[in-house]
């Protein structure tokens, strides 16, 4: 098993390298460059030329990438082309915020989803099952930003219980912070809940007709321990996959929630960076997201192997 993990981690770094190259050349070949983005439409050609010279934008893309890679290998992720500030300094607080929000949402969403999925599977066809399914399907019928608007409209504007702005800053107490990110967290939970609940339910149901489930029933186990101790582990593979997918989404794909709740996350930073063609910043954000995702996938594969002993041989 350890050899397997080491190989996977090695592959992970290779993947990150490929991602960094892809991000670099993709952003680079998008129309416009950081100079045009910084100066806007009214820029004069001379001003553009000055900036391009100062940022060495003239060099061919390949060379710039090699410079960047060399610097990274020495631990220096470079400075933002737009602001000249260290990319890591810009990214760290925001990425911590993104992880905090994603983490909080995951702590609520994953157990809730598994619980609802198992409950729905246990009483397949019953009232609870139908209610859970309908609620889930409703949440995926509406785009994330609209869920955000509805929550703000209800809790912020009408009831005034919670702030709609999730602007975190040092001066806030923990209670204020939690208050500020309650609505974004609820939005994220609703967004990822449906997929995990439905897949958990389907995976468990497709295992429920197996002979060892009948045997467990004949041993007099409660339906709960029957599903949790016998059905769930055998149905774990697709469930782990869907949880990993949604956790990845919570980290990588949450820009819309940051915009609606004005949450200073890394998603918005990356969107700005791409808009400004600020390559070092795009790289840093991209790699942070990619590393998180590759890590999540690795953990998911390992957990899948631990849960299903037969996979260990494969």
């Amino acid at each position, binding site marked *: 098993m350890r050899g397997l993990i080491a190989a996977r981690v090695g592959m992970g770094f290779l993947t990150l390298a490929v991602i960094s190259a892809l991000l670099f050349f993709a952003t680079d070949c998008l129309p416009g460059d950081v100079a045009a983005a910084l100066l806007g439409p009214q820029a*004069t050609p001379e001003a553009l030329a000055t900036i391009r010279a100062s940022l060495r934008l003239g060099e061919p893309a390949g060379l710039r990438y090699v410079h960047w890679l060399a610097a990274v290998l020495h631990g220096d992720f470079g400075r933002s082309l737009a*602001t000249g500030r260290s990319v890591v300094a810009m990214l760290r607080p925001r990425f911590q915020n993104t992880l*905090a929000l994603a983490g909080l949402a995951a702590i609520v969403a994953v157990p809730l989803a598994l619980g609802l999925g198992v409950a729905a599977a246990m009483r397949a066809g019953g009232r609870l099952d139908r209610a859970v399914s309908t609620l889930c399907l409703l949440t995926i019928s509406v785009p994330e930003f609209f869920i955000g608007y509805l929550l703000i409209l209800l809790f912020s504007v009408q009831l005034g219980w919670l702030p709609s702005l999730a602007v*975190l*800053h040092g*001066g806030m107490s923990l209670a204020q912070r939690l208050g500020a990110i309650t609505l974004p967290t609820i939005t994220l939970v609703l967004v990822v809940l449906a997929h995990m609940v439905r897949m958990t339910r389907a995976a468990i149901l497709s295992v429920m007709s197996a002979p060892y489930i009948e045997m467990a029933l004949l041993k007099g186990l409660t339906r709960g321990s029957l599903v949790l101790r016998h059905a769930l582990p055998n149905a774990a593979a697709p469930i782990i996959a869907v949880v990993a997918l949604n956790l990845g989404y919570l980290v990588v794909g949450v820009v819309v929630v940051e915009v609606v709740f004005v949450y200073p996350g890394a998603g918005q930073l990356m969107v700005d960076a791409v808009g400004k063609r600020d390559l070092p910043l795009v790289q840093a954000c991209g790699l942070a997201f990619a590393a998180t995702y590759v890590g999540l996938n690795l953990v998911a594969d390992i*957990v899948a192997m631990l*849960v299903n002993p037969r996979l260990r041989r494969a």
Partner: protein
Amino acid sequence: MSPPLARREFLRAAALCGAAGAVGGMASLSGCAVPDGGGDTTGMLRIGMAGGSTSDSLDPRTYVDWMPINIGYQLMNGLVEIDAEGRAVPELLESWEPEGDARVWTFKLRQGIVFHNGKSLTPEDVIYSINLHRGRTPSAAQAVVENIVELRKLDATRIQITLAGADAELPATLSDYRLLVVPDGFEDWAHPIGTGGYTLEVFEPGVRCITRKVGGYWKPNAAHVEAIQVLSIGDAIARTNALISGQVDVINRIDGRTADLMRRNPRFQVIRSQTGQYAVFAMNCEAEPYANADIRLALKYAIDRERLLKTVLNGYGTVGNDQPIPPNNPYFAKDLAAHTYDPDKARHHLRKAGRERLDVALDVSDAAFFGALDAAILYQGAAAEAGITLHVRRRPADGYWSAVWMQAPFCGSYSDGRTTVDGALAKAYKSTSASNETRWRRPEFDRLANLARGELDPARRRELYGVCQHMICDDGGALIPLFMDHIEAGSDKVRGWQPSAIYDLMGQRIGERVWLA
């Protein structure tokens, strides 16, 4: 006998594996994920505005969007101010005298002004601050000061500016929001030193900024609130909700419908400024079929401007007549025939151009101007009546100004109000301008525009500018359907809030103007 890592424990851990990364994140939630600051909030004016970005900087040379400009005016002062009627009034420059042909100007400096670091204001500071935007500079304001040939200190209180071409309205030109005064040789843009009413306390680009009042501000009747917090809120609905739920006092850029909603509620006030900002569908006069004047006129008659005004702006704007000077501008040519929607006239011009039908594509994105896509769709419907098939091609907002603007033959564009008529004409219509988006180059127009710029006699200048407007309206490649009002809103507690002649939030000087009841 118990197995090394009971599978049950691991399964429970697996269920929370997603949260493992988060535990680290959670720890940071209580720690200070963002630099400290923002203490006392009594008497603080809270502004929630669009126009912030994570790559903002307080160096005036980089000002493109509105948040840094607003903060700039809190910390520093400009040379000249534009008052509510659009007239150039003194700020750090106390008075000015043009000589003979308005090519050489002498400016007198206001006295007794002190920078936040205690240094008093001298001509060298002004000269240094203007030169920041001249010569080899990354500044976007280079075009504004291009006309300046020489900048000279006459004595301890006066400086002299020599221009390449005469400009009767040089003071108004110097009111540009990028010409802010800093001490001579100043470079530390992370902590700008200015003569403004406030000093910087916290600045997180694209997130928020807090400035605190400095005692003894020279400007009379200004800098009332104790502190100003500016929050960057890009999403319009998020801004509105923030105001309604009382988390901010002032928000900018709301749409016509939200404005109506706000006006019905006594707790809020809506400020509407007509600053000459206009939307434009720019045709490239050097490309087919737009090179033909009749085609251009056909397209101008095929758009229903009234419906655009009602549907897109909900009435908060005025109908445009394909030329950049707004009706409330003293130099507006009142005798211009309006290009009201007339499918038959459009067909008439089509036939003059030798065509029964016309098939063109209009590239557009909401990055061009607010409601650009909706306007294009309405135009598509109206043009169909005139036998013109208009393909609306939606383009990404990202990189719009590099990939679409000045590239696509017919695309959406925008211009914010200019302090001077010449500014408006020079920007997009003079042959020499780099941003002449319609590539409509007429030497005769350039001559008349420059003549008018240098003309000191207002009546003569109005007559010249009138001809210029006729030329653009009849022959130009710019289809300008609407002048768009700036609409902003705030709680009724904010007092002293007036509409402004240029830009929004009182020409971005709201911070030092208003006070809280």
